[in-house]
């Protein structure tokens, strides 16, 4: 959908709520996408680069959850 079809909501409450909802959606999407990538054999540096964050940041945020979920993690590229 183009920006011209969906203008920013007139009501500030709607616009602010949209920010919150988009953040939540992005967070959930990040969790799912990182898990999908690591299950597919990506490494932490690759995922970090794709997300535009440091390897430490992505590892700190997702490693424990993925280990608990039984995802086999690769540390570096072959």
């Amino acid at each position: 959908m183009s920006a011209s079809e969906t203008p920013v909501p007139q009501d500030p409450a709607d616009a602010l709520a949209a920010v919150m909802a988009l953040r939540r959606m992005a967070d959930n999407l990040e969790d799912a996408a990182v898990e999908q990538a690591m299950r597919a054999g990506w490494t932490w540096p690759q995922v970090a680069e794709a997300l535009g964050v440091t390897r430490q940041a992505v590892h700190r945020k997702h490693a424990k959850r993925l280990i608990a979920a039984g995802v086999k993690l690769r540390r570096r590229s072959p």
Partner: protein
Amino acid sequence: MTTFQRYFHTIITEGGVEAQRDGAATIEACHLLLAVAAQEGTAPQRLLAEAGLDHQGVRAALQREFEHSLNSVGVSTAAFTMPRPSPALKRPSGMGASGRQVLDRIFTGNRKKDLRPMHVLIAILRAEVGKVPRALDLTGVDRAGLLARAVEDVTNTTE
């Protein structure tokens, strides 16, 4: 431990479970509301249920608010599907901004010995903006009426 302390502890713990289920890093007001709606046999739960807000009803209202907010900027949750991520290993125990505001409202202006479970619901319903009031408004709940009944209940109990 008083009845209120036990209830409060349960709400914070269950709020953390709701936050974990939601994929949230902290406990927010919406998670506290879900926890309140889940405590069968308590006065706040009964009041919510009378307004059509059982646990499932609250969850549906929050989801509706989420989808409505996304739709207002042209985003649809139905537009794509991703596998559901594995849940966080640790249950969140820290309060988010809206959760902290609920706690502030519970403990500000109330004497500790007067606190009742209903004060938790009152503190949640007193929010004028944010996810919870929007969710209740979108569901057609009379927020002011619900709050008035909660205040009346606590006044009658204290007297």
